[in-house]
């Protein structure tokens, strides 16, 4: 049966199991939207800004593990997606972005709303395609989805000219796809695995350091098993939160710039670091020359470029983290005879760690008159569902969430780690809620970042997506203000949000509900009321304005040189 290219595109999405797309129409996708009009198998959500649509696709992908899909028109629609694409790229999120393009005959002519979006996004996509023939749509989409989700995942952009959407063709979706230059190495080398287990059994101060790769690779199960079997303390990056239950005694919490004292001390004192799907980012290592001075390093990652990029590695294992961890579990079971001796030799290490945990736990000073942000986060944990999905924006509130929420399950924290994109939280929550209409989805935002995509309130209300928006309002661009306080003599240059906003009225204007808490005693009831609502709500908390995120490793300092209270 012949159909036009626009329809073929939708059939491809259906074949890929796509149930929801986030997109915004315009001249060069009008044909695609015409085809969508009566294509009932795909739910289309119209955000109020293409950036938000792209973040929503990203939030959908992070929450589900499936490929998120966003659509934008050519020119400004396409450029509006760039921040969303870069955000996904930095955190290795599987996404396919379909952009309209001017008709092929006009490409290169500076036509109306023409932009070289492939060129613009080249450094922040895993790959990109320009479809030049209606016959190529199916194979291109097959490749795009395969690339987005396999190996180290990432966003793939497909540029789809208008004339190709109009052209008639047959639809045949290929069963398999072969890309000769792309063969991700998924299976961990058995000899390397064997060596790794030997190194662990010989270690006396081991630490497992987990990044987002463990979440993306679905490795939470085997990770938890292995850590418990070998009694190894586990610290995670911001992106790794949820891959190992923080309620477990072996958990050290998050490490790095705003990490737990015990986690940073453990890294510094360790004799063996087992890095799993992590990339030794500068926010994690602190000063490189003094990072983990006594440790050998085992690095497990599906992407060989992550290995030895920033730090020396004693044992690299390239492979899918889940596969490698499962092999390590088997290998450990083969070495049962050595296990008891090894475990008892770890006792001094565990007692060091317990000492650090006790000495400087993640804590804050409670107040009876003013709302402490950390208190709000703790109350949110206490009152929310076990399987609630939390997204954050970027800033102090993001770090407080990471420190105080306690994440026990993978894919329950959606946060922009690598790019640190303000404006991410609300649309990402929207994407997660679209994927899971019946789960509790909460976004924790600052008063700065929430404004960057506040227009999505309309999308939430229109689509009955009951996202609970929490605003920790310090009337500051708090994270920058904190740096100004500590490193720039309190010269608060352009970080005070002078204009107070009435968020209850704002919620009202969009047809949502708004709640406000100004005193600690009101926190619980506002959260309870907010959670009880069936629709989207804003819960605003006026918090201690100059509260700081602590501990903090100042930029350029060593991990063990934390500022604990300032």
């Amino acid at each position, binding site marked *: 049966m012949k159909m036009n290219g626009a329809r073929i595109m939708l059939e491809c999405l259906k074949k890929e199991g796509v149930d929801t797309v986030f997109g915004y129409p315009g001249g060069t996708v009008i044909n695609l939207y015409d085809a969508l009009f009566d294509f009932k198998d795909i739910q289309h959500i119209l955000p109020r800004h293409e950036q938000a649509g792209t973040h929503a696709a990203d939030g959908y992908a992070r929450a589900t593990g499936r490929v998120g899909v966003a659509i934008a028109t050519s020119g400004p629609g396409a450029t509006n997606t760039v921040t969303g694409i870069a955000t996904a790229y930095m955190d290795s999120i599987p996404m396919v972005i379909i952009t309209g393009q001017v008709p092929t005959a006009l490409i290169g002519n500076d036509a109306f709303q023409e932009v070289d979006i*492939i*060129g613009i996004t*080249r*450094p922040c996509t*895993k*790959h*990109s395609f*320009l479809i030049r023939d209606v016959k190529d749509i199916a194979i291109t989409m097959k490749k795009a989805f395969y*690339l987005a989700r396999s190996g180290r995942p990432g966003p793939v952009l497909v540029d789809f000219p208008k004339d190709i959407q109009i052209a008639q063709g047959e639809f045949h979706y290929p069963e398999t796809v072969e*890309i*000769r*230059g*792309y063969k991700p190495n998924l299976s961990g080398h058995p000899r390397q695995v064997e060596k790794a287990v030997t190194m662990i059994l010989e270690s006396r101060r081991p630490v497992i350091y987990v990044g987002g790769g463990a979440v993306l690779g679905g490795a939470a199960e085997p990770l938890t098993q292995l850590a418990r079997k070998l009694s190894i303390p586990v610290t995670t990056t911001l992106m790794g939160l949820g891959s190992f239950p923080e309620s477990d005694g072996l958990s050290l919490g998050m490490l790095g710039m705003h990490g737990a004292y015990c986690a940073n001390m453990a890294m510094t004192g360790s004799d063996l670091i087992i890095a799993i799907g992590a990339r030794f980012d500068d926010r994690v290592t602190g000063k490189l020359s003094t990072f983990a001075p006594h440790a050998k390093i085992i690095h497990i990652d599906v*992407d*060989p*470029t992550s290995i*030895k*990029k920033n730090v020396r590695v004693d044992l690299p294992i390239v492979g899918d983290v889940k596969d490698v961890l499962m092999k390590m579990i088997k290998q450990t079971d083969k070495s049962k005879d050595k296990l008891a001796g090894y475990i008892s030799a770890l006792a001094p290490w565990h007692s060091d760690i317990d000492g650090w945990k006790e000495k400087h736990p993640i804590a804050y000073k409670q107040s009876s008159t003013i709302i402490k942000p950390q208190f709000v986060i703790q109350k949110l944990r206490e009152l929310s569902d076990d399987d609630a999905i939390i997204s954050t924006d970027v800033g102090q509130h993001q770090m407080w969430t990471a420190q105080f929420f306690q994440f026990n399950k993978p894919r329950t924290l959606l946060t922009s780690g690598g790019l640190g994109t303000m404006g991410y939280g609300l649309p990402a929550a929207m994407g997660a809620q679209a994927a899971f209409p019946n789960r509790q989805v909460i976004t924790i935002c600052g008063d700065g970042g929430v404004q960057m995509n506040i227009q999505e309130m309309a999308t939430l209300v229109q689509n009955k997506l009951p996202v609970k928006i929490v605003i920790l309002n310090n009337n500051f661009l708090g994270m920058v203000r904190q740096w100004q306080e500590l490193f720039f003599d309190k010269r608060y240059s352009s970080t005070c949000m002078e204009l107070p906003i009435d968020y209850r009225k704002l919620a009202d204007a969009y047809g949502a509900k708004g709640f406000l808490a100004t005193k600690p005693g009101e926190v619980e009831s506002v959260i309870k009321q907010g959670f009880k609502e069936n629709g989207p709500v804003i819960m605003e908390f006026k918090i201690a304005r100059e509260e700081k995120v602590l501990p903090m490793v100042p930029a350029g300092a060593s991990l063990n040189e934390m500022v604990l209270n300032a």
Partner: protein
Amino acid sequence: MQHTISVIVENDFGVLSRVATLFSGRGFNIDSLSVAPTNEEGLSRMTIVTRGDEQVLEQINKQLNKLIDVLKVLDFSDGSAVERELALIKVAAEDDSRTEVLRIVDIFRAKIIDVTPKSYTVEATGNPMKIDAILELLRPLGLKEVVRTGSVAIGRGAKGWNG
């Protein structure tokens, strides 16, 4: 240290700019770059001369391999390849210097490919060091224009890049 790398790529739209973006985005140097189709349908070969320490070279290798359009990266840093470059050199040649140019061309087994009353155009091939050497000798006579292709390299021995 200088390294010569050959990269086998899909002959696809945008592949050159992907490779170039990779080098510029990560602060890697390109001393020379040449690209042309190979004997295999749909494949091109790039020869890139770059510099950096071992760690940089390892990253370059891995990052190139990560590009979807790259099939194979061959690292010839260990001298396992034959390298050649071609240069077209327009040199001033009047009166006495005409015979001097011819003598140098002869020594380097180069060729004159264009002649005017005031100049010779010389075609020279060889490894890049040989090209540097002939340029050094011709320079005092007055170089008017120099075009170099950049190195191309092929592995020594009976095997091709894919066996």
